[in-house]
């Protein structure tokens, strides 16, 4: 298994945090163009997914938050217990969780754009 140096991982961690913060601000500003209840209406949510730019923003936000969140979880779990087998399991588990969350979130966007929703 390829092992990244911890400083590279932490650069990614800090970078994803900053990126997610930036995209979240844009996302909130976009929501402010409508009333709160309108923003949550089914047609409007689908319309957001169908807008390519906004769908890319949401997809990126999902990736950044998943990478940042699961690396944070890995760090917490590594502190709670130590040992080579445990650490390998934590790393694999967090990578799998990250991939699964990104896949599940992207699936909604993709299905919408394929007219399946």
């Amino acid at each position, binding site marked *: 298994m390829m092992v990244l*140096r*911890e*400083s590279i*991982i*932490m*650069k990614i961690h800090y970078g994803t945090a900053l990126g997610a913060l930036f995209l979240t601000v844009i996302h909130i500003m976009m929501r402010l163009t409508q009333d709160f209840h309108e923003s949550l209406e089914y047609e409007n949510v689908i319309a957001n997914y169908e807008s390519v730019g906004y769908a890319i923003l949401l997809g990126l936000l999902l990736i950044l938050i998943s990478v940042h969140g699961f690396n944070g979880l890995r*760090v917490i779990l*590594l*502190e*709670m217990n*130590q040992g080579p087998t445990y*650490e390998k399991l934590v790393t694999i588990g967090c990578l799998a969780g990250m991939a699964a969350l990104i896949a599940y979130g992207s699936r909604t966007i993709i299905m919408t754009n394929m007219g399946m929703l």
Partner: protein
Amino acid sequence: MATIHPKLSDELSQTVVSSTKSVKIKIKRSNPNVNSEQKFDDFVVPIEKWTTVLDVLLDVKSHLDHSVGVRYSCRQASCGSCGMKINGKPGLACFTKISELDSDTVTVEPMDNYPVVRDLAVNMDRMINNHKKVMPYVIREDSEIDAESGIREFLQSPENVEKYIQFSSCIKCGLCNSACPTMAMDKTFVGPQALAQAYRYIADDRDKGKNKRLKVIDESHGIWRCHFAGSCSQVCPKGVDPAMGIQLLRGYLLGIRD
């Protein structure tokens, strides 16, 4: 058990007569080599305004209970041997006056995050091993001994000395590691003492071992596990600021320092 200081010898009675105050000291006792029992023994000892916690412990050891286990040597905050938890805070027993604790009862316990050898003495292998791991010496290819010109010096500017001089004051007492919350959770964390020493040598412009040291500390239980609680810097008896050293080291690893 509360024991009043006995007046057994002339020397001892002189101490008692000259003192108007006394302090109750609660010493945590344990001997993991024998059993897992832990208890506090109480002793009442006369004090003067200059009496230190170590003085009180040695008084107890000399006159009340010879079996109290305590490690000490220089009695002047230079050797770093008498680190312990004093009223819940890590400190050097020889550098902590009873009068400054502002309490009639003083509780002493072994330092946290170290295995106890007996009573107040702890095993410091973990700190020493981590200290060795960061190569706490100047690394370079050439030597101060030159075959042609004899002995020469590696000169340094006062400005450069300023960059690391405070970190040179470390006496390896281990109080910073004892106060560190990450050390308490992560048994393989390198610790603030070793990280501060890594910075001390990396910041030294005579040293050429920066990359070697950064490689040692840039691992999953290295520098990135520090949460910057800052308790290491709070308890250092020599004014070293390991928390700052750690942040400066991170600068090297993030590429914002050369």
